[in-house]
């Protein structure tokens, strides 16, 4: 089993959902990022999503958009992001790392170059917001031949007819975007999430992670009862936004609360 499958299996064995946390690489600076990533792990994050900043993050709300601009404004280059990833891999050999971002920065030097860099840096998977299954040829083949997971997104508008196309070539886990919208804004009704996850589980054996709009330990716990993973992004990025270079302890404390809520779930189920 690879790092990602191992981690999902371990969480499952503990009767809890995996906690997947997102921060933007280089926010507020390249130098500050390693401590923030360490704080995520120390707080109990199971999988790290590392955002690749882009000038035009069309699918993101204000919180992550500002993080992108802070990062680029402080001079983050693609080379720094792979250095941050490689560094993280050396410090945390067992924690899966997923790069998340937009097509243009990923593909500007060609998909083979990008896949090679991912592999060399110990990146486990990639989420590309604006390469849908219809354009898989841009990115999918290169990642697959490098053994990097291509994590696909399913949304409230992905109907039963379309879902097989999304699942074809998806690996690592399936990311259920719980609201039709941008990151960090609305929050989906729990009943809708439950229904969507059930449908996705019926269609695939991939672990199902739920994200977009998850901001509190309570919400994470509720989603964790049904999904295999819970993704929290904007709420953490907001902490980085307000505490800057000194964000690490605040991030760790918040992630610990999220992790605690998911773990309490498992005790409930066990009891």
């Amino acid at each position, binding site marked *: 089993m690879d790092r990602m499958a191992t981690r999902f299996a371990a969480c499952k064995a503990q009767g809890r959902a995996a906690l997947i946390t997102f921060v933007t690489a280089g926010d507020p600076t390249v130098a500050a990022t390693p401590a923030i990533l360490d704080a995520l792990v120390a707080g109990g994050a199971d999988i790290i999503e590392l955002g690749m900043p882009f000038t035009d993050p069309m699918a993101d709300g204000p919180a992550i958009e500002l993080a992108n*601009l802070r990062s680029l404004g402080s001079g983050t280059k693609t080379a720094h992001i792979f250095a941050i990833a490689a560094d993280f891999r050396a410090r945390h050999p067992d924690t899966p790392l997923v790069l998340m971002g937009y097509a243009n920065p990923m593909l500007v030097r060609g998909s083979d170059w990008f896949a090679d860099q991912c592999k060399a840096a110990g990146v486990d998977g990639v989420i590309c917001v604006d390469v849908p299954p219809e354009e898989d040829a841009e990115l999918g083949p290169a990642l697959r031949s490098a053994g990097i997971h291509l994590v696909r997104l399913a949304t409230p508008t992905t109907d039963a007819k379309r879902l097989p196309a999304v699942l074809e070539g998806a690996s690592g886990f399936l990311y259920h975007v719980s609201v039709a919208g941008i990151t960090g804004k609305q929050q989906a009704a729990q009943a809708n999430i439950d229904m969507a996850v059930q449908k996705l589980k019926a269609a695939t054996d991939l672990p199902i992670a739920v994200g977009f709009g998850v901001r509190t330990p309570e919400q994470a716990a509720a989603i964790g009862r049904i999904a295999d993973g819970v993704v929290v992004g904007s709420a953490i990025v907001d902490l980085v936004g307000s505490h800057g270079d000194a964000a690490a302890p605040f991030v760790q404390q918040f992630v610990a609360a999220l992790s605690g809520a998911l773990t309490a779930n498992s005790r409930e189920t066990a009891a």
Partner: protein
Amino acid sequence: MTDTISLPNSLRSQPDASGHFGQFGGRYVAETLMPLILDLEKVYRAAKADPAFEEEYDYLLKQYVGRPNPLYHAARLTEALRKDAPAGKGAKIYLKREELNHTGAHKINNCIGQALLARRMGKKKVIAETGAGQHGVATATVAALFGMECKIFMGAKDVERQKPNVFRMKLLGAEVIPVTSGSATLKDSMNDALRHWVSNVHDTFYIIGTAAGPHPYPELVRDFQSIIGKEIKTQMMEAEGRLPDMLIAPVGGGSNAIGMFHPFLDDTDVAMIGVEAAGEGLTGKHAASLAGGASGILHGNRTYLLQDEDGQITEAHSISAGLDYPGIGPEHSWLHEIGRVQYMPVTDDEALASFQRLSALEGIIPALESAHAIAAAEQVAPTMDADKIIVVNLSGRGDKDIFTVADALGVEM
């Protein structure tokens, strides 16, 4: 480059089934939007095959927009250029008068078509991005005409630069939303329009203002704008009994240009020039994505973009807000690569000079966008024989630009 690309029998048969023009175009959008643009494609195919759709579109273009607009022989401009040209040189210049359309530019041709599609899809709300405000005004206009709710996303900087158009949109019943994200100009207004759309896909139709974005937008915007080229064909046959030798149009995203060029793409004797905004010059700040950019992915399509080595989008600059965009429609990227259309950069200063010259010589104040095409014609006409014919697309009128021009010329108003 040309001989390594295999060309289709007709250059007018693009895009392919997946929305690609060669390596350009495509559908690079978030999964949430994919089902909607697939649906739009289906609705568009059905509309295209429905005579009632075409009939209503034609009716509105005639009775509401005021088409056909004239193909005007610019005799004084032609003569002025001949005077300084070598003997026997100086092509005859015609202007396609898109500026006489209702709302003062070609943008309305596309808005009418897309509003009809929105209605077919049962959407009662429309949104649009705008730079100069021309597409915003055209969208607000058709929204009023169709009784639809309308939101216009406009960069905060452009809201400041284009106050008269902001007020026009409000008069027409639209809500104007200033966009403060990123560089607060056209590309950011497109980002925010996309953000709003992805959050409101169930009831909202996005009227994209240029021949760019995810498939099928570049195709359908081109088709709606092709009325420009079709009319030129008929009018030129009437006026001269033959096709023109050269077509010239300004290129922002490329909608007026592709609308002019597309009906002529298979007429191999007709040369074409698309004019990009070279701003302060190609070594300074500019908006010429073909001359100074590289292939990349933004706003739903693969096309030429202004970007750095990491694929970050760099800011465009042009004195003309309508050309101030770091990308270009994908069909133009393809036509550039196969060499069918030549693209030529024109600077702010050159456009400003032509803005004044056309006003004084012909009594027509052109939009700054269109002034770029006039400048190109002024450079090219004197190199061509006097029996050659050029048509320039006068894509819009310049009333909206008088403050910008006065400012650039140091005139207090």
